[in-house]
C-alpha cells in the first residue's frame, strides 16, 4: 500500500536533480559518476519539462477539440476552457468554493491528528507490551480487513449527515497506517544498538528517547505522510457518501446535476490539495531527517 503512494514524492525529489543538501565535510570525495550527472542534470531537466508541457498541451487540445467538434455529448465530456472558467468563477472572482475547501481541510486535519495520535499511541503501547499486541492482534487484523469506506453508511446512521462520519472514515484509515508504521519504526532499532545500551545500563526512559524514538522517526514519517493522504481520501469519500458540506459533497452534487466542468474543477482542487500536503510533508521530512 505504501509503495505506489510514496514513490511519486520520492521521484519528485530526484527529478529536481541537484537538491541542495548541506554536505558534511567528510563528503568531499564524490564518486566520479556523481559529477558528470551534476553537469548534465539541468539540461535533462529542461528537456523533461518541455516534454511534459507538450504532453499537457496536446491532451488539453484534443480534449477541447472533442468538445468543440461534439465527438461525444459535450455535457458528458466538458471542456478544459469551461473547467478553467469554473475555477476562476468559484475561486477568484467569487469565493464560492473556498468554503468547501476550508471544510474539507479542517475535517482532514482533525481526522489526521486523531487517527495518527491514536495509531502512534497504540503502536507505542504494543511495542512496550508484546502480549497486549498478541492478544488484540486478531481484532485489529479483522477490523483492518474491512474496506473502511464501507463503514461510512454505518457512521451516517449513528451520527447523521454531519462531518463526524467523514472524520471517522478518515480516522479509521489513518489509524492503521500509523499503528503499523509506529510498530515497524520501533522495531527498526538495530540489535547492536540495543546491546550497546544494555552494556551502558541505560534506563527505559533513556532507551526510548535516545534510541527507540529517533530510530523510529524515518519510518514514522513515511507513515505520517501516507496517513495524511489517507485522511484526505477517507474524508472526501465520507463527504461523497453523505455530508452537509465539503469538496466531496460538492463533487457528488455537481455529478448528480451533470455539471461535468464543475466536477473536473473540484477534482483539480483536490489534486492540488493532495500535492500541497505531500510537498509540506516532504519539506518537514527533509528538515527533520537531515542525518539520513
Amino acid at each position, binding site marked *: 500500500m505504501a509503495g505506489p503512494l510514496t514513490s511519486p514524492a520520492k521521484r519528485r525529489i530526484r527529478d529536481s536533480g541537484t537538491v541542495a543538501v548541506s554536505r558534511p565535510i567528510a563528503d568531499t570525495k564524490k564518486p566520479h559518476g556523481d559529477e558528470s550527472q551534476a553537469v548534465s542534470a539541468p539540461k535533462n531537466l529542461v528537456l523533461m519539462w518541455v516534454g511534459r508541457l507538450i504532453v499537457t498541451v496536446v491532451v488539453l487540445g484534443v480534449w477541447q477539440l472533442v468538445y468543440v467538434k461534439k465527438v461525444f455529448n459535450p455535457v458528458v465530456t466538458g471542456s478544459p476552457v469551461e473547467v478553467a472558467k469554473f475555477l476562476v468563477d468559484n475561486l477568484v472572482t467569487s469565493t464560492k468554493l473556498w468554503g468547501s475547501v476550508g471544510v474539507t481541510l479542517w475535517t482532514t486535519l482533525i481526522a489526521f491528528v486523531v487517527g495518527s495520535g491514536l495509531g502512534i499511541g497504540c503502536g507505542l503501547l504494543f511495542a512496550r507490551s508484546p502480549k497486549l499486541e498478541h492478544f488484540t492482534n486478531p481484532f485489529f487484523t479483522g477490523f483492518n480487513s474491512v474496506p473502511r469506506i464501507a463503514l461510512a453508511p454505518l457512521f451516517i446512521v449513528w451520527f447523521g449527515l454531519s462531518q463526524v462520519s467523514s472524520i471517522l472514515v478518515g480516522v479509521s484509515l489513518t489509524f492503521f497506517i500509523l499503528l503499523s508504521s509506529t510498530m515497524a519504526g520501533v522495531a527498526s532499532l538495530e540489535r547492536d544498538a540495543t546491546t550497546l545500551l544494555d552494556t551502558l545500563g541505560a534506563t527505559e526512559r*533513556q532507551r526510548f528517547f535516545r534510541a527507540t524514538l529517533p*530510530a523510529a522517526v524515518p519510518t514514522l514519517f513515511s507513515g505520517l505522510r501516507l496517513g495524511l493522504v489517507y485522511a484526505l481520501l477517507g474524508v472526501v469519500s465520507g463527504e461523497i457518501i453523505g455530508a452537509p458540506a465539503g469538496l466531496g459533497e460538492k463533487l457528488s452534487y455537481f455529478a448528480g446535476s451533470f455539471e461535468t466542468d464543475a466536477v473536473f474543477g473540484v477534482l483539480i482542487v483536490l489534486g492540488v490539495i493532495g500535492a500541497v500536503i505531500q510537498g509540506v510533508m516532504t519539506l518537514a521530512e527533509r528538515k527533520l531527517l537531515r542525518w539520513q
Partner: protein
Amino acid sequence: MGNIVSDSGNKSVGIAIDSVTHRFGPGQLTLDNVSLNVEPGEFVAIVGPSGCGKTTLLNLVAGLLPTQEGTITLANEQPRPGHPLVGYMLARDALFGWRTVRRNVELGAEIRGQDEALREIRAVELIRQVGLAGYEDAYPKALSHGMRQRAALARTFCLDVAVLLMDEPFGALDAQTKLQLEDLLLDLWTRERRTVLFVTHDLNEALVLADRVVVMGRNPGTIRLVVQVTLPRPREARMLQSDPHFHDLSATIWRELEGGMGPWLDR
C-alpha cells in the same frame, strides 16, 4: 592531556574468572571450567576459533549473561550490565545515525550521567586523538568504515571506565586500517591504563597489543594456552610486522599449539 579529564587511572580493577562453565541448553556445553585472572591495568587478549565461546565469556564478564557455574569478580562485585567501571566495545560500531560524531562519542558518558561540560571536553579531545578532528559535527553516514570504528573507539574511551571489554573491534577492517587502529588503541591505552580484555581472531593482533595472550579451543570452549608476551613496550603495530622477534614468538605459539593439542584452528 587525557589524564586531565580522567581519573580512571586510579580505579585499578582486575577481573577474576573462576571455574566458569556455561551452557546455552542441555548438552550444549559452550564454556567448560574457564579460569582467568586479569590484573589491574593488564591487557589480555583472547584468541580462538569461531564459536569457541569468546563472546560468551565477554558477555558473562559484562553481566549481559547470568553466570551459571563458577564465579566472576570485578571490583569486589559480581558482573552486572551497566557497571559504571566497565565499558564494552562491539565488533560493529553501533553508531547512532541521527547523532553527530561528537554526540555519538558522548553517548555512553551521557547515559551514565557524567557532567555535560566535562564529557564534551573529553569527547572533543578523544575525537582529535583518534584522528577525526574536523568531523565532530558530521553524521555517521559520511564516515568510512574505518572512521566509524575510530568513532566507536572514541566513544568507548569517553566512558572513562577502569575495565574495557572489546569483542573483535577491528575484525571487519582492512589490514592497513587495522594496523592504524591497533596503534591508536595502544596509544590510548598507554595514556590511560585500563584493564583490557580483548577478543580477536588474529594471533598477530593479540601479540601486538597484549601483555598476555589466552588461546582458547572449542567443543567445549576451554583455555588451551596462556602466553606471556615479552615484547617491550611501547610497541608499534606497523613496526612489529617487520620485527623478527615478533615472528619468532608467533611461530613458537603456532608450534606449541600444533604439537601440544593438534590443530586448534580448523578454518
